[in-house]
């Protein structure tokens, strides 16, 4: 009983950590530009696929990981420069379609650059399972959680302690005022895409030894990351992390106790309930429309 529950919890937290990183990526871009980047999930896929093919090409794992993150960041910056920035004044609907278009485009590109097969990355430190009160804990799970925690702490440090991070926060509160204070908001936008891409890539790389990757698995991961971000209140970093864990755990429990076929529906049921009953998310600020 307990061991099964613990097992579901472990896998829920593991995948939840990836949703959290993805949700953070949504929030960072949203804060910098009020754009929802529906291509966020593709960053996860590109990071993972790049790492896989670099390792296959004989590049040592640590170097392959760094390169894969850099490649994904470059894709993120290109996406921002070529597709988002030219349409900066567009309506919300327009921007949604642009980023969904980008997502489909990147998926198609991945299918050409790589293939349609599943790929796996070797676990970072072996496959000897650890027994935890009857539940099985793979070493890679610890990697996922450890990396997620470190990344989240680094982000918190970046936004609260560095000038660059503070500039990004300022831009999210009031872009015009930030610009008047000499903050280069275009640069902020670019950094936000690079940072989100890096978050996606890191998440994609650490989870791939557990879940495999393929050209088309970015979409679902991205949509669940978005659910996490909305659940926690769009633009709220801590909220995205909590939202990611909630979605991950709920999904894993549903798969374990109810039906594995409806696992993917769980995130969307939660998000609908939240949107209908708590439209500002769990931790969102309530805004008053000014007329």
């Amino acid at each position, binding site marked *: 009983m307990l061991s099964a529950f613990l097992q579901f919890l472990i896998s829920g937290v593991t995948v939840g950590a990836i949703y959290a990183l993805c949700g953070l990526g949504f929030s960072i871009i949203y804060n910098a530009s009020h754009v929802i980047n529906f291509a966020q999930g593709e960053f996860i896929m590109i990071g993972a696929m790049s790492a896989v093919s670099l390792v296959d090409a004989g590049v040592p794992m640590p170097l392959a990981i760094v390169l894969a993150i850099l490649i994904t960041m470059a894709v993120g910056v290109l996406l921002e420069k070529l*597709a988002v920035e030219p349409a900066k004044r*567009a309506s919300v609907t327009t921007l949604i379609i642009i980023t969904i278009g980008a997502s489909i*485009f990147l998926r*198609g*590109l991945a*299918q050409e650059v790589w293939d349609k097969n599943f790929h796996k990355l070797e676990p970072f430190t072996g496959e000897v399972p650890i027994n935890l009160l009857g539940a099985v804990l793979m070493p890679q799970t610890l990697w996922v959680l450890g990396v997620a925690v470190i990344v989240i702490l680094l982000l918190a440090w970046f936004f609260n302690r560095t000038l660059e991070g503070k500039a990004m926060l300022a831009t999210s509160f009031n872009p015009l005022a930030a610009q008047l204070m000499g903050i280069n908001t275009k640069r902020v936008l670019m950094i936000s895409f690079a940072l989100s891409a890096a978050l996606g890539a890191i998440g994609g790389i650490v989870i791939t030894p557990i879940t495999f990757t393929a050209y088309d698995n970015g979409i679902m991961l991205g949509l669940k990351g978005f659910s996490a971000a909305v659940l926690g209140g769009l633009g709220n970093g801590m909220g995205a992390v909590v939202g990611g864990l909630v979605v991950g755990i709920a999904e894993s429990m549903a798969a374990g106790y109810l039906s594995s076929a409806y696992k*993917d529906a769980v995130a969307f049921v939660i998000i609908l309930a939240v949107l209908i009953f708590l439209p500002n998310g769990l931790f969102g600020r309530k805004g008053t429309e000014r007329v």
Partner: protein
Amino acid sequence: MKGVSRWAGLGALAVFLAVLPQALPNNYYVDIAVLAGFNAIICVGLNLLIGYAGQISLGHAGFFGLGAYCSAVLVTHHGWPPVLALLAGAILVGLIAFAIARPILKLKGHYLAMATLGIGIIISIVINTEAGITGGPDGIAAGPFTLGGFTLQGERDWYWVVAGLLLLTIWLATNLVDSPVGRALRALHGSEVGAEVVGVDTTRYKVMVFVVSAVIASVAGSLFAHYVPQLTPTKADFFKSIELVTMVVFGGMASTFGALVGAAFLTTLPQFLTVFEDYEPIILGGIMMGTMIFMPRGLVPTIAAFIQRRRS
């Protein structure tokens, strides 16, 4: 003046649809025309919601799929006559859309996108999972469409039915747009509070247009179920929803004929690109981004504005 141009547009389309089959060399092309027609019917309805009322839906394939599966299941498993199954599907979808519209249409922008997307995905997961009823990923065959001893057979029969339904849908949509109801829809797109203070019950109109567009998708879906030999869940999935929105946006938001052109173009294009089949997502994604960046108003309104500028 406006009334005249509306009848002229509808008349020109009727003539075009009447002569088109003569120009099509074989049934392969008629098939494409029928598929384009189905998409155009859904898009004209979806455009009322997205283009005119300004409310995005990333889940309309769900309603299309619900209508289609409702027909297929009632006809094959329960022996219902196709027309009754179609009506039952339309009523069911109408009720579902009505029930969810009020809470979710309070949401705006990204939140509305997320909610409609979620509904579409949930519907698609249910269709995929309840294999006992729906046939799961393998799909289900609804059989031919029959009405009072008459059976629709072959692409050409279907062509006339779909063409007729398309004309009817466009006629109804243009009527609606150019009425107090349509103006209320466009007004709440322009400014919700501005519309409210002159007496427009914006919630009611949003719910209404959401239900109308969902029911149109459902009716198209019911017929589609009988048209294809095997109905599969991919017709109800997230990508189908995105494809529909892309058609509306590419053709031109708030342009009924734009929705038609968008559907026709994006249905036909991949057929001529079969050699590039693998590149289809790249091309589709590229079109979505390109249209939005370079002509955010869509094809038809952009061309119309260009012609108007040349004239004056």
